């Protein structure tokens, strides 16, 4: 029985993609472990998306760890968990640290070397394994590890849907040299301008960055009591990926990896003298051209001088009916492969050195934001501070008012009253807190307010003893409105879908009528 290559390849790719999605959560989880916040947050967040994700990560990290007696989570499991979490750091499959092994993406280290005109030892050390692997095995990163190699073929399946909807599908082939031109240009720009730019368009970098920003925004918002879907994490990079996907589907399938990816260009250039190659048995070839059709790199495996273009994906080997194409899989090759598959994860930490392009590992320890509003009233400066700054409906929040005359630096010592209104549409206001005095401590007036719902509020300060105008109004937002772009996208998308369906129905109808006429 023939042993197919693609199931193994897909398994590796899925594992890598899963790690890209998972690592950001592990990073944030480890942050909470360090801060001893994890159990508290699990309790507070309950079954919100953030709570579920944190709980899932926790469960995953605990696999195989003995719980202490009677389920009390003590010091030792926390330590063990920390050690464990520290084994999975980073973002990119090769820009990560896994079990103490540092790996750096070749493109990233090359670009930062160009941009800084220096070679940083950390980056150079991290690049050793990827460099060796590429020299020996060729573009194996593209074929076996890069998540785009998994996602794009999936997305390209939409081509049949497009054809069903009677939309035009093209098969344009670009020149493979484009990617070298792009890489060279970027190297020049980096060298001259000191500006690393390729990470904006390098798809695996975009994907892992988005994964990290998703985790960051999700948990940051949860810390402020916001649990909705964080639409804000979509960036320009995602739009770029969407455009690439659109071109792949409608215009030029496979164009990105074969003809435009700067990372691919670098790997191709390095893999000219690789050892792992597809061996051809010319005598067995029956000229069925199945391999030509199947090759995702737009090569002709039987006849091409493939140079460094082949990504060793093994599709042609699988598809060949006469075994005219075959990998020679030596034991050393296999061992190297295994090492690479294990070497999944990030000296993203290393990237934080001297402003190199770093792929989004967010090490900052986010704090819940604090609201701080300032206003002049007569000779006084009034500062209103809120804790938390992003108050949650139904929870007690604290407002501190400090009234001070900056000219003489003397605090205002008379009565300060606070009222709170919910702003209702058309200017209606509903009083939610009657005028009252706060607790006064060292010139600081402290008030507690509970905002009942997600809405706009207005906090009114009244200084009755002050001559002339004596009220100040501070606007406050509790909760958040959704993005209006979602509405626009929903409507626009619906409209486009309707347009396409109606057009398809008309074309099919016309074709059926023509057929009937012919028959």
């Amino acid at each position, binding site marked *: 029985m023939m042993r197919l290559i693609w199931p193994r390849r897909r398994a590796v790719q899925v594992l890598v993609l899963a790690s890209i999605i998972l690592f950001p959560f592990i990073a944030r989880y480890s942050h909470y472990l360090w801060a001893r916040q994890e159990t508290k947050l699990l309790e507070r967040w309950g079954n919100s998306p953030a709570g579920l994700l944190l709980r899932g990560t926790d469960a995953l990290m605990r696999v195989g760890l003995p719980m202490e007696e009677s389920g009390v989570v003590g010091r030792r499991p926390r330590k063990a968990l920390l050690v464990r979490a520290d084994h999975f750091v980073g973002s990119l499959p090769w820009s990560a640290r896994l079990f103490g092994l540092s790996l750096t993406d070749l493109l990233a280290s090359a670009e930062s070397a160009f941009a800084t005109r220096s070679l940083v030892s950390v980056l150079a050390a991290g690049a050793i394994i990827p460099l060796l692997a590429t020299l020996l095995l060729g573009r194996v990163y593209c074929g076996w590890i890069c998540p785009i190699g998994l996602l794009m073929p999936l997305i390209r399946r939409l081509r049949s849907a497009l054809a069903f909807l009677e939309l035009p599908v093209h098969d344009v082939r670009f020149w493979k040299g484009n990617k070298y031109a792009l890489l060279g240009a970027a190297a020049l720009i980096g060298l001259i301008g000191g500006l690393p730019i390729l990470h904006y368009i390098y798809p695996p970098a975009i994907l892992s960055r988005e994964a990290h920003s998703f985790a960051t925004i999700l948990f940051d918002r949860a810390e402020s009591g916001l649990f909705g879907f964080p639409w804000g994490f979509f960036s320009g990079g995602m739009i770029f990926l969407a455009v690439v996907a659109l071109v792949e589907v409608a215009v030029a399938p496979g164009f990105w990896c074969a003809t435009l990816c700067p990372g691919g260009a670098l790997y191709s250039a390095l893999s000219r003298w690789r050892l792992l190659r597809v061996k051809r048995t010319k005598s067995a070839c029956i000229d069925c051209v199945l391999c030509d059709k199947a090759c995702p790199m737009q090569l002709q495996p039987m006849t091409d001088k493939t140079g460094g273009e082949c990504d060793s994906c093994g599709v042609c080997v699988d598809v060949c009916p006469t075994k005219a194409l075959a990998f020679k899989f030596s034991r050393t090759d296999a061992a190297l492969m295994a090492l690479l598959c294990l070497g999944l994860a990030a000296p993203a930490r290393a990237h934080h050195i001297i402003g190199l392009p770093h792929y989004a590992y967010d090490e900052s320890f986010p704090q819940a934001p604090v609201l701080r509003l300032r206003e002049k009233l007569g000779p006084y400066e009034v500062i209103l501070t809120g804790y938390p700054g992003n108050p949650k409906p139904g929870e007690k929040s604290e407002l501190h008012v400090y009234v001070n005359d900056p000219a003489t630096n003397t605090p205002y010592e008379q009565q300060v009253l606070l009222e709170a*209104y919910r*702003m*209702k*549409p*058309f*200017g*209606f*206001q*509903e*009083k939610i807190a009657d005028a009252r005095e706060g607790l006064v401590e060292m010139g600081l007036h402290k008030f507690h307010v509970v905002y009942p719902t997600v809405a*706009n509020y207005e906090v*009114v300060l009244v200084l009755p003893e002050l001559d002339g105008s004596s*009220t100040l109004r501070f606007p406050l937002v509790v909760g958040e*409105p959704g993005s*209006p772009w979602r*509405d*626009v996208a929903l*409507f626009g998308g*619906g*409209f486009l879908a*309707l*347009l396409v369906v*109606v*057009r398809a*129905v*008309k074309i099919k109808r016309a074709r059926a009528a023509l057929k009937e006429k012919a028959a």
Partner: protein
Amino acid sequence: MNPLLSPSRPAAPKSAVKNGWAGRLALSLPYALGLLVLGLIAVDLGRTGSTVYVDANEMARTAAEATHPPASNVESPGISGGAVDPVCGMTVRPSSAEKAVFEGRTFHFCSSYCRTAFLEKPAEFAQAAHLPRASHTMRGLPTRMYQWALVLILILSFGVIELLGGDGKGPGPMSARWDLTAWAPLRRLLESNLFPFIPRVFTSVLFLVVIAAGLFGNQNPAMNIAPLLTWTVWWTGLIFAVLYLGKGWCTVCPWDALAGWAARFNSSLDLPWPKALRSIWPAVGLFLALTWVELGMGITLIPRATAWVALALLGMAVTCAFLFERKSFCRYACLVGRVSGLYALFSSVEIRAAKENCSGCGTLDCWKGNALGDGCPTFEYPRAMTLNTYCTMCAECFKTCPSGSMSLNLRPWAADLVVEGKPRADEAALALILLSMTAFHGLTMTPSWVALLEETRAATGLSFLSAFTGLMAAFLALPVLVYAALAAASAAWARVGFRDVALRFAYALLPIALFYHLAHNAEHFLMEGPRLLALVSDPFGWGWNLFGTARRAMPPLVTLEGLWRIQVLFVLVGHLYSLWITARTARRLAAGRGALAVQIPMLVAMVVFSWASLWLLKQPMDMRLSGM
């Protein structure tokens, strides 16, 4: 070549029936009433409110300072042009408002009633004048005015009916027409492709701006143009427009315009509208749904929800344009078109064919369409059309008609309501629903409604929305039940079929519904509408000042007393038209004493509904916009 310069096809010779003096009177009545209302507004604007001095010494002091009038302390903060009534909290126009001087400060009042309240305990009100207000409640009709109006209605209903209605046979003065398209430039405009294209471009751009404002603008409804322009200006102004322009809104409707252009870009599947839905029940359902979300969910106060409603309607229009032939959506499903369509039976314009000219025509171009224009988009047969209901005044028939038979006529109000048409159950239902829903609309703005809702919630333990839904259903059913009972009485008494009575007289209720609607809307329009001036300069609430008016708060156009006069006038006019149509309908159904028998229970219905209108106007109103 500019189509406006192209020679007009010769207008068909119209039968030269002269309008008699009664006809001419009927033709000019709408404009007389319009002028009267404008005159009332002008007089009210020009009046100077009287001033009362709380302290007699004050008068002498102020007289000495006459050249330097005391500055008002109660101007709204940050905005110019308005003063706030210290009693009810309404913003008033300082020049025409009633005034009182107390402790050197001048206070302005919405009406003499608020001043009376102020004079009782001036110190208390004066002290509270600067405090922020949660909302304000507007006074309703004063009791005396309400009682007088009621007496007038009773006298009109049961004392004057015999003078009205003629014999119910001949068309009488209602057949008077004035063909505007006898004026060639107008005819050329209607025949050209630039109409209604150019006005539609304007309305569509405006529509998209309003949607953008609703979605992206400041979500404080008082600072966003979308809610005010949609609910206070457009939705209420639409009803005013129907009186004089008929279905003019449909002519320039941006929903249909955008959907039509989209369908032109990617032509329609031209499916026939489903047979089961070939009535206006879909539109009736949409109207109820809109009323429910409008009042129950309070979307009039949420800019983004306002944009959502506009987009949802646009989505429906576009989908229907892509799927169904002609403008099925306009004919069957559009609630705006069907509500204004029913009201347009009353309107003072119409598009009709000169039938004597059409009898020899074999082309059917007005139905089928030709190279010059489409066949009637709303499935009317213009050549035989007798009612305004489904005509969108799109002027396609002007373009297609090979012999220039179509004409745009001025006519007396309610002309279609005396035409012998075939009454339809769906239309009759919509007429009743319009009556109950506009009244319900008014009711929900009164404090008694809030109390009723709270009591219902306390008694049943329902949530706000379920309690609201239940009460809305009850108030929807109440007038329908009252009407059905009286129609049954009328049918039994005069021995006529119940269905015949119920369906025919439902149309006679339209003027009452329409004019109550107008009286209610006059309040929004005149009292809240002027705020549009400030919003036009800053439509998104982003702090723009495009025309330099952003910081100007326009006070209401009229004083409360002026508003009350206009409202009572509207209710009386509506009642009069309803009476008159009732009389004619009754005489068509039965002769002699039978007509009286069929009429009397219906008169009772009219009086009950007009009384309800007056009662609603008497209630104080929570205003949408205040305190800003």
